[in-house]
């Protein structure tokens, strides 16, 4: 069965890893999602970076992320949630550790123009 990395998971991991950034274009995150998929090819992983999936992330986690002019922003509460291990316990829950590790490595190494 394929493993699904949802849009909120990709966003949350990005902002946790790049702690100094609070804004990123959605198109850049989409490219990172493609790279995550590519790096995990063979492990049955797909990233749901569809418009409904992305809009869902902003609706469900409106307290953590905002959408503005095609860019994702974090709210003031994001760091509080990160400190409470929310990324691990909410967004990465259910994903095998190897998948999370690979995704985070890819995110870490991707340069993003903001």
């Amino acid at each position, binding site marked *: 069965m394929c493993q699904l990395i949802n849009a909120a998971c990709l966003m949350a991991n990005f902002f946790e890893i790049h702690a100094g950034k609070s804004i990123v*274009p959605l198109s850049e995150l989409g490219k990172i999602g493609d790279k995550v998929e590519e790096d995990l090819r063979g492990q049955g992983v797909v990233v749901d970076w569809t418009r409904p999936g992305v809009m869902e992330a902003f609706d469900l986690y409106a307290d953590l992320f905002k959408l503005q002019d095609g860019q994702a922003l974090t709210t003031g509460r994001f760091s509080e949630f990160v400190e409470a291990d929310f990324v691990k*316990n909410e967004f990465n829950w259910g994903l095998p550790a190897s998948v999370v590790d690979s995704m985070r490595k890819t995110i870490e190494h991707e340069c993003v123009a903001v």
Partner: protein
Amino acid sequence: MDESRCKLFKDPVHGYVPVPKQFCDEFVDTPIFQRLRHIEQTSMRPLYPGAHHDRFVHSLGVFHLGRAAVSHLRRPDGYVDVADWEKLKRTFEVACLMHDCGHAPFSHTCEHFYNHSDTEGARKRAEEWLKTLIDDLFRADFGRMAAKPAAHETFSAALLITKYKEQVGRVQADLYLAARMITGCRFAIPKDNFEKIANCLIDLLNGTAIDVDKLDYIIRDTWASGVKNTAVDVDRLLSALMIGIAPLGPRLCFHKSALSVIQSVVDARNYLYEWIYNHHTVLYYADLLDKALKQLGKDLAPDYDPDHFWEAVFSVRPFEKPTAINSGPTVYLPTDGDVMYLLKVQAENPKYKMVPEILSHHPERVPLWKTYGEYKRIIDRNEIPDIRITETLKAQIPEILAEFCTGYDKAEFLVIDAKSRHASIDRGDIMVEMGEETPVSYTKILGEQENRSGRFFYVFVPRDLREQTAELCNRVCSIFA
């Protein structure tokens, strides 16, 4: 094209919808389009028995609204000549009519199976298929999209390109531009004015703000359910539609006279989201259907081909010819009825306990709370902070409840998240012409409005525990405390 010869379809929402005879001959009266009569529009039928509306009538409704919308748009002087404007409009009409031509059985509940794969090298099958059909520029723009299209949009675009190439040509429309409109794939770097204006029409069918697709299903789902939702004055809204000039070029926007109607569209969407699409009954049956199909996907695929079922039902193959599933039943132009047949065959199979529930409409489980309001009260009363409500803790709920209720298995308890996958509107992307130099974002005019959605889930427990809901709620809360 002779526009004077039309077929009139009686639509309960928009009244008579005239469709030019040539459009009927080329598109409507074809097996692929007629298949949509048997694809239900939403998953809300278990809740509203009158909601028998389907993708066929929705497609006609989007075509109708699309034609009305472009008829209100003035040709942008200096951008496109009359011939190009006519071509753009014709292409837009084709895209509106065919935008859902490949929608999956049970619509959004099952569309994700178009991109589903059980092989180790999981592939997004619909996306891969479309990419083989389009040119380099389209593929590059597809890759640059801020977010990819939904699976059914990708599939519908690919189906249009594959099955309707000649027909689109005969009505003097642009096949690949129609596919861009269906997928919402704008020209990232428009090379000329034609492409700049084309981007406005792409947004008008499949944008992140208000488009004719969303407008139709907001109005239609409200009508079909019978709920008293906020009324949307669609004529007023469409008559306010215009192409404004923003710093980066032409942009679809609304005249300020439609501000109140824009607000009513946002309100109507929020109402449907909160009270209909996320109703516990709707989510419960959608979850049963999803589980049943995943089980079929496993059981009906031979070991050497884990994607056999998905390819046989959720791919182009059954659109081309009758396709046998593992030497068993055959599927052709798959509809809700075909999927229901496959499930009925399993009705007595103990692995498919969900099938008798679907067939009898007698749920084996009841929710501990039934609305977002009740959920919020329970959470607030127990002083549980948002930060504590995580998937990790939610995953413990079935086990903890099963331990507490002797004689029950954890599989009998279900946690289902409220979703927000469809009918989303980015209010910041709704542009309004306020008489200033450039159009202004709706949220800049009226400010950010707090969205009532947010995280929210239901817990379903066996029906015979319904007298103990208060106690079970306390147990659930103790997990987060």
